[in-house]
């Protein structure tokens, strides 16, 4: 068994595709129209054959209250690995991304949390080398 897909629930798939590709830098993998929505996945250019992130519509009536409750408490919907949180924070801030939590040293990891503009907070995480 392998983990092939992970997903985020987004309020607008087209806007999400722009944010996740143009701003974050992921690559489009699939964009298959399915009625009013589309099957859209992106991958990291560092791992184009790796886990795909599905940009799923948050249409279910329970989805938005759930997302809003997470955002209110600053809880990220998911987390991405980066080599350098500080550098990513600088790069994304320059692109207008809003961070709810700037880079924070938590001991074994450094994390930061930003707004994906589609109704989610996303954490980026850098693992520090173990002494």
């Amino acid at each position, binding site marked *: 068994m392998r983990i092939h897909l992970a997903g985020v629930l987004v309020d607008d798939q087209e806007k999400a595709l722009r944010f996740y590709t143009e701003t974050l830098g992921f690559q489009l993998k699939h964009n298959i129209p399915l009625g009013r929505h589309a099957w859209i996945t992106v991958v990291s250019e560092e791992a184009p054959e790796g886990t795909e992130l599905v940009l799923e519509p948050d249409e279910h009536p329970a989805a938005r209250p759930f997302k809003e409750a997470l*955002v209110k*408490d*600053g809880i990220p919907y998911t987390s991405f690995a980066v080599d350098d949180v500080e550098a990513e924070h600088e790069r994304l801030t320059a692109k207008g991304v*809003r961070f*709810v939590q*700037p880079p924070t040293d*938590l001991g074994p990891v450094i994390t930061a949390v930003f707004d994906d503009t589609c109704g989610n907070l996303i954490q980026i995480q850098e693992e520090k080398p173990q002494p």
Partner: protein
Amino acid sequence: MDVYRAIADPTRRAILDELVDRSGQSLFELCSRLIMKHGINSSRQAITQHLDVLEAAGLIRTRREGRWKLHWFEGGPLKAIGERWPISTDERELEK
């Protein structure tokens, strides 16, 4: 809520320590810091209750910032302690 009871609890003191380190934190950031830096793995609900106590004592304030809620340290109420029990009476003499 009196300030003495509010700071009597070690978890609440750790919360204040972290808010002094960086003011304007979400509940998630606070909980992450408490578990990673202090080994305090209380539930989010328990931390929320501690935050309510601190807010009632005037030691923190909260504000909705866009769609998220952030917490700030407020040192004001602690001033009363120093005024009630000055560090030394000699010091008061020196100030004259």
